[in-house]
């Protein structure tokens, strides 16, 4: 089992290291971290700090995918959460109280959205990809409804803390992501919860018959995922001091799904690795930072991302490895071995 986990994380970690070493060779100052006014700065800190929202969402997404689901609506939840928080902060006097209420409102609404997704999937039995597509499509409209189609800018020191503040020299965003990661890991690995989630993902019907409350568990993971997205939404809007219903969190669901898949969690459910997802998210964030740090035109980010993810996915694909092995063992001219039996296609 441990060997399996090690194996699963091998390629993403290698990819991450290769990128970092490449960065180091291209610009020796890449790893430099300095302490300014008691705060840490540097490329590595930046990767962690800017990657925090993606890490959060990837953690939530991992549990959803572990139950054989998928949540396409996280980008919309990011936009809605940021919009509501900014609306509240902009309409009330600046202060810690206002900020706390804004956080509470945003997370409360995220919770409701998670309950909605969970209801569609767990109670109505709708395929996760379509169930969450509804909120993905409608959510952008709701976010714009909240901001009245405007970009709300806020200027509140206490609100911005969640995105760009510091706590004992470290950016607060990193600490929050770390806290959620530790909490989730402890919950799923130190209790039976993770096992139950994997059981539901492995076979929902069998686990229900075995006496698991699989519907309630499914519900729970969507709520957790939406909450993670809500926190990420607060971070993102605090970072840019504004809420943009149209563009906040655009495509972040795709980045998160990529992070989870790169981290070795299969979309078919039943097995997951939270640590893998964090590494996947860091890999994607490092790609972006690398592109900027190396002076590659930012236009190439997406192309770069596509190629790296393709490489990692291929290396992880059992079929690809099988074909590679066969090519090595068979000399040219010899007839190929019998084709591997085709697996049943299971769409997410």
């Amino acid at each position, binding site marked *: 089992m441990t060997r399996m986990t090690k194996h699963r994380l091998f390629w993403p970690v290698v990819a991450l290291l290769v990128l970092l070493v490449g960065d180091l060779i291209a610009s020796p100052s890449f790893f430099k971290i300095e302490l300014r006014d008691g705060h840490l700065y540097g490329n590595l800190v930046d990767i962690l700090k800017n990657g925090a929202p993606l890490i959060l969402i990837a953690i939530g997404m991992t549990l959803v995918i572990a139950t054989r689901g*998928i949540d396409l609506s996280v980008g919309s939840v990011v936009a809605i959460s940021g919009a509501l928080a900014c609306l509240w902060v902009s309409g009330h006097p600046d202060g810690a109280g206002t900020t706390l209420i804004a956080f509470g409102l945003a997370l409360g609404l995220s919770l409701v959205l998670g309950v909605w997704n969970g209801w569609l999937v767990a109670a*109505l*039995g*709708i*395929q996760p*990809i*379509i*169930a969450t*597509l*509804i*909120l*993905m*499509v*409608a*959510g*952008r*409209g*709701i976010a*714009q*409804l909240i901001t009245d*189609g405007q970009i709300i800018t806020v200027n509140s020191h206490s609100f911005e803390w969640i995105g760009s503040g510091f706590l004992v020299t470290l950016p607060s965003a990193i600490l929050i992501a770390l806290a959620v990661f530790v909490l989730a890991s402890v919950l799923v690995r130190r209790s039976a919860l993770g096992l139950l989630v994997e059981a539901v993902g492995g076979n929902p019907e069998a686990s229900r018959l075995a006496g698991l409350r699989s519907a309630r568990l499914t519900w729970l993971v969507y709520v957790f995922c939406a909450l993670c997205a809500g926190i990420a939404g607060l971070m993102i809007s605090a970072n840019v001091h504004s809420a943009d*219903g149209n563009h906040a969190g*655009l495509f972040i669901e*795709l980045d998160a*799904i*990529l992070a989870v*898949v790169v981290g070795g969690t299969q*979309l*078919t459910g039943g097995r997951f690795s939270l640590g893998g997802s964090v590494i996947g998210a860091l890999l994607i964030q490092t790609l972006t930072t690398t592109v900027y740090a190396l002076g590659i*035109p930012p*236009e*190439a*980010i*997406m*192309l*770069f*991302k*596509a*190629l790296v*993810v*393709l490489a990692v*996915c*291929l290396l992880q*694909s*059992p*079929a*690809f490895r099988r*074909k590679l092995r066969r090519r090595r063992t068979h000399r040219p001219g010899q007839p190929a071995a019998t084709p591997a039996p*085709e*697996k*049943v*296609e*299971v*769409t*997410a």
Partner: protein
Amino acid sequence: MTTLARVKGYRPQQRHLPILATMALLIGAYIFGASSYEAFGSGQVVLDLFINNAFLLVVAVGMTFVILTGGIDLSVGSVVALSTVISGDLMQKHGWPAYAAIAVVLVVGALLGAGMGALIHFFEIQPFIATLIGMFFARGLCYTITTEAYSIDNATIATLAQTQIPLGGELHISISVVVALLVVAAAAYVLAFTRFGRTVYSIGGNAQSAMLMGLKTGRTKIAVYTISGVCSALGGLLLVLYKSSGDPLNGVGLELTAIAAVVIGGTILTGGSGYVLGTVLGIMVLGIIQTLITFDGTLNSWWTSIITGALLFVFIVLQRLVTRRTR
């Protein structure tokens, strides 16, 4: 296939229920529009639905093939953008003749689609992930070709874009509409009457049984993604005719609109059941909502996404009820 046959044999109305619901919704929306706004009732409003959505219709037809096999194609929006960018680049920057550029665009679309199909078939990468990679790849290519929009002033393109085909009275349609309808007709024929079409349905019904029956599932799977790629490229060309420009920002989120149209049109996302005609109706429903909101004038554009989401919800629940009863 067996499930299909059984459903068809015993409960034909059930199978057509989503499509009939979409049709009823469409007619209802039209009657509502015509009674609320005087100009809405003119036939040209209906034809404009086709003119404005021709490119989307072609893209959604390709998506229908993919979804019928139980797959999904997230790359279509990016491929549409890439088509407009390539045609802009070739014609504006390199002075290529329009038809040569069109040929290149279609070939690129086919290659991208075939590439994703190959990843899915040979390396067993899930369609969602393979086409997600395709999405980033195509959008990335757009940005590396250009970050700015090209305005296209090619004589051939202008002629194609401006030609109006009169239909008697004041009514007219554009060449894009003719192309889109030809694509729909070809797709409907292929799905209904050819061996390939039946294989598509049977893969969606049960991929493993289809393979055990000796159907060429691998080849067919690669083919549907190729079809989707070509349809997206063609959709991009129609968008060039519509907007006379190539823009790397085109078609952001288009894949979702296409999927929504296919779902509203009654095709089931797990595959195996649905019609191209439903997709046409789905596009029309989305188009008519847009038109109603434009006519109303007091509603903001973001209501489009909220209403689309609500409609998606209604149709998904409806499909859920229908499929539950047939089992």
